[in-house]
């Protein structure tokens, strides 16, 4: 789950912790401008500055995937990304998965139908990862163990994953128009 750094503006130079840096980005289709400390994590920026609290933080060290958002179209761990690194980028969070009219994204629909969430804390990150896989063109020809490899960037402590695997398959079908 590497981040595509080429799409990000490099941040260099010496900053004091309270120096503010101006950033602009597009979050779920809306242009955002802010002045933020250079050390602010993207996860904190989204959650606490923009109040997009659907993105969760489960470890703050890049292992659990709960904080996964799309940065420049690719699944990225927002806890390992500084908000200033996202300057000029397109960001999509769980709040941007459904259509503006509220119609659920295939991954949201399938997670609900397959009971792929219990407490729901890992869910936004998981869905963003799966949404990324859908966009990459992952197909249902994969074996279960191959599919599980693709899902092994996110931790869930509640579900035992079985239903997340099923939901991923269902989301692929929904994307391919195989099921209504």
């Amino acid at each position, binding site marked *: 789950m590497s981040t595509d750094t080429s799409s990000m503006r490099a941040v260099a130079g010496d900053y004091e912790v309270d120096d503010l840096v101006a950033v602009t980005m597009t979050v779920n289709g809306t242009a955002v401008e802010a002045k933020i400390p250079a050390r602010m994590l993207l996860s904190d920026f989204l959650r606490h500055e923009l109040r997009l609290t659907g993105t969760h933080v489960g470890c703050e060290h890049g292992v659990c995937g709960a904080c996964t958002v799309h940065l420049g179209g690719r699944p990225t761990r927002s806890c390992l990304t500084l908000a200033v690194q996202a300057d000029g980028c397109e960001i999509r969070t769980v709040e941007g998965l459904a259509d503006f009219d509220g119609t659920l994204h295939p991954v949201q629909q399938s997670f609900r139908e397959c009971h792929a969430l219990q407490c729901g804390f890992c869910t936004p990150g998981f869905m963003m990862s799966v949404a990324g896989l859908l966009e990459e063109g992952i197909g249902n020809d994969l074996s279960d163990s191959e599919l599980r490899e693709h899902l*092994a960037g996110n931790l869930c402590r*509640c579900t035992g994953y079985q239903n997340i695997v099923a939901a991923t398959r269902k989301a692929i079908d929904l994307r391919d128009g195989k099921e209504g």
Partner: protein
Amino acid sequence: MSTRQFGERVQRNEDDRLIRGQGRFVDDIPLEGALHGAFVRSPHPHARIVSIDTSAAAAYPGVHKVYTHEDLGPLDVLMPLLIPHPCITHGRTQYPLAHGEVFYGGQAVAFVVADDRYTAEDAAALVDVRYEPLPVEIDIERATEGGAPLVHSDVPNNVAAQFVQRSGDAEAAFAKADHITSIRVQVDRSTAAPMECLATAARWDEVSGELTVWAATQTPIGLRGALSSLFELDENYVRVIAPDVGGGFGPKILFPYSNEIMVPLAARELHRPVKWIEDRGENFVNMSQERTQIHYIDLAATSDGRVIGLRDRFIHDTGAFIPYGIAVAQVASTSIASSYRIPNIEVEFSCVYTPTVPVTPYRGCGRPHANFAIERAMDQLAQELGIDRFEIRRRNFIPPEEFPYAREGLIFADGLPVKMDSGEYDRCLTALEEALDVPAFRAEQEAARAQGRILGLGMAFYVEGTGLGPYEGGQVRVHPITGKIFVNTGLTTQGQGHKTTWAQIVADQMGVDSSEVIVVEGDTGVFDWGCATFASRSAVVAGNAIHKTAIKARQMVLQVAANMLEAGPDDLDLADGRVFVRGSGDRGATLAEVATMSNPLRYAFNKAAASATQFAAAASSDGPPLPDGKRPGIEAQEYFSPPHATWAYGAHGAIIEIDPVTCNIDVRKYICVHDCGKMINPLIIEGQVAGGVAQGFGGAFYEHLDYGTDGVLKNASFMEFLMPYATEVPDMTIIHQETPSPINPLGVKGIGEAGTIPVPSTIASAVDDALASMGAPPVRSVPLSPAAIFAAMQASTVPA
């Protein structure tokens, strides 16, 4: 029409918000102007605090206050020992902030409150604490020996509690046994690691004088009690809310954690809302843990494999303190005889202090350990007597006709006698045996062996005492204007789906769809009688309370509607949100109308209300508008208090392949047969089982908190503490069996912890089976790393 929703695979009411990113976990609560806290924690497992200098931290820009124990005033007191027991001779609990000495790495020493979390953490790093380290002993057996370093200088041999329980006469049984099997087993320290760590936010309302606390807790009512006591406030001035909680699995039942005292205190003193969100590294050294036990178990048997006596002596690691009493050890000790008749039992345990994070229940709560001991011993007995593993269990099962089966003399963790209520153990085991297709597997194993491949089949049986008291309550209310049905309990939900299962129970009585029933719980401002979510008890205790309440609410609807519709209550039915005269077509009323009519009104604020005013034609003419002894509205409360625990059970089986080179274990088949009595929602139950099994896999293979001999935890992150990803949990088959519990109206038993209990036993049994032909020593401890498998293969007497 109303079809029965109890028992259906109903989709969850809670999901829509959660999949849209609209969940409300503690850190998501918007609190304008909130300050943020950070703790300074001890890096030493045991040390005297020489000095604490907070001046640099306090002077750091953006810092509002730095607390040490000296700033706590009347709150500088030992925290409660929540579940006292006479056998706890040396109970020790901690202060909110360390008081001259630290007893485990991670203990809270100081608390910094600042404008934001970044600043708070900067300043926490500036608090200068000088320590004088003290010697430690991490090994729980050596810790009890004379001369071992003491965790608490006034607790001899580090023993907090010692307890013996007896049922029958074990000594006599052992004296006359044909065969005695003795083994030692060990289960290691793990952590529940819910994806949401601990979290607390608090606000004092200067106007109302009310303290509101949002906490990632399993017990808002318990926490409110503690906060009322500590802060000396009437309970109605303290409101505790568990909003969405991101997994619990046990440790969130403990209260009050330091943060649950420091955050409200700071909010009161600083006149601002305060928030503290635990980070993952902190969670590894702050949130309570579980699992280390060493059992010495002996079985006395007849030559045909009937176990007539059981002796178990075990040591339970309670960490540096014992705030939750002996709960974990007591559950282990009373679950030790499992599903077997075994009439003579003697079980003794010691709870031992170690300079580690305190131990309180984690999913399973002593049961996985007890299960590992008894199931390993049963396998060993089978092997020694040359009896098949399935068969030896059959010979010892309590048969269906012997229920209720009491183990006289054993007291369970609810303070009530161990009395197993129902079960069809043999049927369950047979279902497992068939699903595993044992004969086919044996042939495959034989063929594989010829190719140098190592296959094994493992199995384990378990029981789980669930649905512990004391009681829970339910409240059902039909709102007059909207006609919506609200349901409340004093519980919390951390993913178990209460908003759906309670709705199903109520929907059946009220004739609506479960998606229309709104469940609100986890808020003492809404309903504040009850206990907590733990011990697989919610469906049993709250579920039955809600069932009773819904029946009462239905009766109220029928009574009011009977007057409105001029029909007998028995001629009425409820469906589609209406009450109507059976067979009459449209003679009926909506629930909203009934709710309005049930409340004598003065004001006609809408059309329905107009007909309910005391001046309306329909109003009864004689007597007061609200007859003596009646209450207004459709609102009912009921409570359920179980006579004792109800015992769920099941059997797990696995087929594994061990890679002879990497020693990796591939679980090729995993089967769970379980019986939790009547099922409210099989979809949710399967989720609970699967999640439990995944945690069981963690315990069987990976999860091990690595405390060095110096007492320092060496793997306090998700980088080094391994938890199963999707790649580490096999696809599993779940087979349901339903034997109703005779001791509650719904016939249900708990399911929350079941999946976790027998996994280590099952995997160990499979490894033994795989390596048996090589003469490898049997598995006696978990987790089972590839290194452990390698060692077992090295110790084999026959080459692979």
